[in-house]
């Protein structure tokens, strides 16, 4: 069956190529579109995913990283006293404006970190040093925001929240979900920039002792300070992503586009398989006449659909990987996890098998007597 399926498929190269285009199109679309979506939504949890904190502690109703509620800074001592906690530091996130050379302003997200531990500070610093924020008025901005901030230079002085800020280092790839530039500085300076009472903060970032369970420590924190909530960093990252997914309808729009692409792929594959069968009605009739059972005939179609799905998936994945390699940037991040690649291949395989049912229904109707009457 395998030989019959493969060789009859290859014999009609034009149609095979058309079907493969359909499969490749679906795979590339799902991976690139899905990768863009995941890359985009991943930014909502970027500070949690890439920072050094194991647990994020915030207001009882903490929903997303960039929109925190104020909490008293002094409660950090209660958390520090809990078993399993190695370090807990206040962390501040707020929005304000940065002045631009052209006379305008740009909305920025100011991130203030503890000056002793620098926990939650900018990472991937490519120019200058992370601890340069300890210098007077020192701030770190990201290279991805250079254009938006009108090309600030190292050492240049700007106003943030109406106060002096000197650019002392550049990071690379810290791009916020809201496309608002991040400005990293010390906690006290950040409070001043966003005009927040310095006795308040947005979060406590917690690092755990080796072997401590994040879930158990989170439960202890909730018990000790009922006004607070606490989540392991990956959990809070997911909560932040879900916040934007559910509030913005992003998931629906990306998902709809991906589904449309899949549907188009399905139609191409089904149509191609169907026309392959129409071209070969006499051959299928011959097979039935000489003793092929219904299941053997379907197996041929099943194998052909599987071959198309596998070959198309491999080509599609290679193409998607190339697109990811050449076009993924911190601004338009294409994040393609293994489950997305494997899932898309599985989905396309299922689609191809469903698509093979349509020509099978046509073949079922073939009366082998047609071979004798043709």
């Amino acid at each position: 069956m395998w030989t019959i399926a493969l060789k009859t498929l290859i014999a009609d190269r034009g149609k095979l190529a058309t079907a493969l285009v359909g499969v490749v199109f679906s795979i590339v679309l799902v991976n690139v579109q899905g990768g863009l979506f995941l890359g985009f939504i991943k930014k909502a949890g970027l500070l949690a995913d890439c920072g050094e904190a194991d647990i994020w502690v915030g207001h009882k109703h903490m929903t997303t990283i960039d929109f925190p509620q104020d909490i008293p800074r002094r409660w950090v001592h209660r958390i520090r006293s809990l078993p399993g906690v190695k370090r807990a530091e206040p962390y501040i996130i707020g929005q304000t404006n940065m002045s631009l050379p052209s006379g305008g302003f740009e909305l920025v997200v100011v991130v203030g970190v503890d000056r002793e531990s620098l926990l939650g500070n900018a990472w991937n610093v490519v120019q200058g040093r992370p601890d340069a924020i300890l210098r007077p008025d020192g701030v770190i901005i990201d290279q991805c925001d250079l254009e938006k901030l009108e090309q600030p230079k190292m050492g240049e002085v700007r106003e943030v929240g109406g106060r002096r800020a000197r650019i002392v280092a550049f990071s690379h790839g810290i791009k916020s979900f809201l496309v608002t530039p991040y400005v990293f500085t010390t906690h006290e300076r950040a409070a001043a920039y966003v005009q927040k009472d310095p006795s308040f903060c947005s979060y406590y970032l917690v690092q755990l002792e080796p072997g401590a369970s994040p879930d158990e420590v989170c439960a202890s924190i909730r018990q000790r300070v009922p006004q607070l909530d606490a989540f392991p960093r990956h959990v809070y990252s997911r909560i932040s992503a879900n916040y934007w997914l559910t509030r913005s309808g992003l998931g629906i729009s990306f998902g709809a586009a991906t589904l449309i692409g899949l549907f188009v792929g399905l139609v191409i594959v089904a149509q191609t398989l169907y026309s392959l069968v129409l071209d070969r009605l006499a051959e299928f009739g011959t097979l039935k006449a000489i003793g092929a059972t219904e299941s053997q005939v379907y197996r041929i179609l099943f194998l052909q659909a599987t071959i198309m799905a596998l070959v198309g998936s491999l080509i599609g994945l290679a193409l998607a990987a190339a697109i990811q390699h050449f076009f993924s940037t911190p601004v338009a991040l294409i994040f393609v996890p293994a489950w997305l690649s494997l899932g898309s291949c599985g989905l396309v395989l299922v689609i191809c098998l469903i698509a093979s049912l349509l020509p099978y229904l046509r073949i079922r109707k073939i009366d082998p007597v047609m071979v004798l009457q043709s």
Partner: protein
Amino acid sequence: MIAHLKPSSNDPLSVAVRVEAVEKAYRRGRTSTPVLNGVDLTVAAGECVFLAGPSGSGKTTLLSIVGCILTADRGRVQILGEDVLSLDAARRVRMRRDRIGFVFQRFHLIRGLTALENVAVPLRLRGTSSQAASRRARELLESVGLGDQGAAHPQNLSAGQCQRVALARALANDPELILADEPTASLDAANGPEVMKLLRRLTTNQGRTAIVVTHDQRIFPFADRVLWLENGRVVETEQLASPSPAGVGAQRVES
């Protein structure tokens, strides 16, 4: 090796095909067009019978009923000892696959498969291993004089060669009954008799039964008997030779 099936007069299977009072009509909507009107046909094992007659006389329909492709509306059809009207669809498929070989007017070889692979198709459908099927297909291609064309694709073979491949395919499962539908209609004057000679040599001369539908009067000498059908009935029987393999017809073909 091609098996030699020796019919015996004492063997109940010495009658390979028995068709009695068979009626068949094609229905389209409320319209019913009778094609066979009480056909009787008996073919002895090892005999080569031609069905001739004008278009629409029911030759192909009768062949399809004998080949378990169509079912009769009425009558009795016994093929190789089996009452085929009582067989369910799956057993009719097995009957076609295991005991009947088909040769079609337009060869109906599978595109994309080589001559060898085409011959091996019925064996693969039966579950024979790839190696055994290839070995048997090679033997059969040699027996039809195409031993060196196993790797050729149908589009690279002449019509005569394609029909020989189709004949080899029909013999793949060593069937007892060969049904051929206009096997020479797509062949020229030289290739037609050649294919018939081959068909006689590989079928009835080896104890197989053959029923051939044809318009081609040039090949009538290859038959043991020619039955004329008109309006769905056998109207005339012409005995050309005593039944093969010992028959005159067979000897004449071989000479």
